[in-house]
């Protein structure tokens, strides 16, 4: 569908600006005018656009229509858990009693909010088997930083100052090593074995007196449940280290196993993945940290405690400190609370069952067409390699781009790094069998196109608002804001 006139999205806000137009009418000053500060303190120019309200609505609506999204497209992005985001969650988070309250208002005026946070701490502690919970961290990587700082603080509090290393599997998400480094650790890479598990021999080699801990994603980013996990935890603990769990893939495990019972000491969850809060094009998220009672004193502040019938914020005794300006992404917490409460225990367990069922059904439908480097029962996602197609001239990137023409968002590509031409596909529990069947058929059709019409695949996408973009130009001559002199 084409748009005409000012509903086209090409022109940027500053280019649409017409002097004198206003987008909002504000009240008059209703108090006697006060003397302004010295002129030197005031700015002359305020280079913001001048556009009317209809134009703003039309422009941003037009921009939204250039996106793929869960509501408009199947979005099987591996490790991102792009499940349906329930609308009721949003509606509840916008209630004035939640969205309209101030973070510094007294506890007596925010008992409902504190109660919600307290109960959510309990739910997440129950789901992970790690009962000490702080909701103050604002995204997955932020939770990782918090968890790693806790591990550091724990060792230091025990006088154990020589633990400088953190071991991380080679399949890990990039935030793991980045977070460990931000927490002051030296990162050691852990190899995976031929089944995609942590290589126990490699682990034995690093499990010494300088090991602070390991960071493990379970299921791994290969979409596999690490059958060595109990042994991994045992080896690390025996060496005096702690086990950190990256909960990015918890959608596979909820109600099936508890991280705490397996031997994990501290883990974060991604509420914007597992617990259905919308990803928003890159946030907001929330990355609660769940830990064993032993680590509870080190949690980031604040946490909510309950005494008698009243709730209040408290800072744990040996807290690593504050990691965010206030108490966490409350609006996201409200959505996750609503989700868990809606599903209950039975529903939570049904989520993981159907997520894993859908992934295995999808994997089964594509086995033999695309290479499965680790052909075992997968968890919530399956990692294929496009190396068979690459031999015929089309890479994973090109297959992913071609999927866009079929109306499906691309899977995660080239990750994890240990799989050549990786295509990581996560259907989630919220997709229908019909959609998954259509997606399988699309990938089979594309495989045929690779043989019959490789140019069609290699020049894809053909139906998106823009074709393949010149990323080298973008990086060599960075154009990162609109400037009058740069305008055409």
């Amino acid at each position, binding site marked *: 569908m084409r748009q005409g006139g000012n509903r086209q999205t090409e022109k940027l806000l500053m280019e649409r600006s017409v002097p004198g137009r206003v987008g909002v009418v504000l009240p008059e000053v209703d108090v006697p005018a006060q003397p302004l500060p010295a002129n030197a303190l005031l700015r002359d120019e305020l280079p913001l656009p001048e556009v009317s309200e209809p134009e703003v609505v039309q422009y941003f609506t037009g921009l939204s229509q250039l996106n793929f999204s869960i509501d408009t497209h199947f979005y099987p992005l591996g490790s991102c858990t792009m499940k349906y985001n329930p609308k009721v969650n949003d509606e509840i988070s916008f209630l004035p009693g939640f969205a309209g309250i101030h973070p510094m208002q007294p506890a007596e005026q925010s008992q409902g909010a504190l109660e919600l946070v307290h109960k959510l701490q309990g739910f997440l502690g129950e789901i992970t088997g790690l009962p000490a919970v702080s909701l103050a961290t604002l995204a997955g990587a932020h939770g990782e930083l918090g968890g790693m700082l806790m591990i550091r603080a724990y060792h230091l509090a025990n006088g154990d100052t020589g633990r400088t290393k953190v071991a991380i599997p080679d399949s890990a998400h990039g935030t793991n090593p980045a977070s460990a480094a931000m927490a002051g650790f030296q990162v050691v890479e852990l190899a995976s074995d031929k089944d995609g598990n942590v290589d126990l021999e490699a682990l034995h080699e690093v499990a010494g007196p300088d090991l602070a801990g390991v960071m493990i994603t379970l299921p791994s980013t290969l979409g596999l449940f690490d059958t060595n996990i109990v042994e991994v935890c045992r080896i690390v603990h025996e060496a005096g280290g702690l086990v950190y769990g990256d909960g990015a893939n918890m959608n596979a495990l909820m109600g099936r196993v508890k991280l705490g019972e397996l031997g994990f000491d501290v883990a974060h969850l991604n509420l914007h993945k597992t617990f259905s809060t919308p990803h928003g094009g890159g946030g907001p998220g929330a990355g609660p940290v769940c830990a064993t009672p032993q680590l509870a004193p080190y949690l980031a502040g604040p946490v909510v405690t309950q005494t008698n019938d009243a709730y209040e914020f408290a800072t744990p005794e040996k807290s690593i400190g504050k990691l965010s300006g206030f108490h966490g992404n409350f609006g996201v917490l409200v959505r996750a609370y609503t989700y868990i409460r809606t599903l209950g225990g039975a529903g939570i367990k049904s989520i993981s069952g159907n997520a894993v069922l859908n992934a295995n059904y999808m994997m089964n439908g594509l086995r033999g067409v695309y290479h499965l480097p680790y052909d075992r029962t997968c968890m919530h996602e399956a990692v294929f390699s496009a190396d068979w197609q690459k031999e015929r001239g089309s890479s994973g990137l090109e297959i992913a781009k071609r999927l866009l023409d079929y109306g499906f968002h691309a899977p995660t590509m*080239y990750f994890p790094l240990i799989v050549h031409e990786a295509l990581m596909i996560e259907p989630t529990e919220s997709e229908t069998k019909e959609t998954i069947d259509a997606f399988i058929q699309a990938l089979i059709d594309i495989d045929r196109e690779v043989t019959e019409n490789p140019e069609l695949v290699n020049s894809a996408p053909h139906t998106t608002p823009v074709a393949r973009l010149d*990323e*080298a130009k973008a*990086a*060599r001559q960075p154009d990162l804001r609109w400037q009058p002199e740069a305008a055409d």
Partner: protein
Amino acid sequence: MSPDDRRYTKEHEWVMIEDAAAKSAVAGITDYAQDQLGDIVFFELPKVGDSVAHLDKMGEVESVKAVSDLFSPITGLVTEINEKLLDHPELVNEDPFGEGWLIKVTMSDIAETDGLMSAQDYDAFTAGL
């Protein structure tokens, strides 16, 4: 085929002696390296006057979606860097053995290049990767 007027490292850098008497040499990355990296977008190079050491990190090269360390093939003092690369890193994609050189160095010991691979050995090495 890599040019046989210079020597190569396993990290895919080359070095060519320009003037043996003055111990001056020029260094860059190989055609194989630029091909593996894809579109190069940025170099971080040592400064003129910095010392570099044989197979020690001397900088970084970035493509759109990868970043790799650059290792100096030789030990010595940097006398010149290829300023053109600051605005035109693509020169290394286009002409890695010529216009796309990275640094010029006064070597501590020109015999150091003897330990590096010949063009023939390097090509055999990359063929096996």
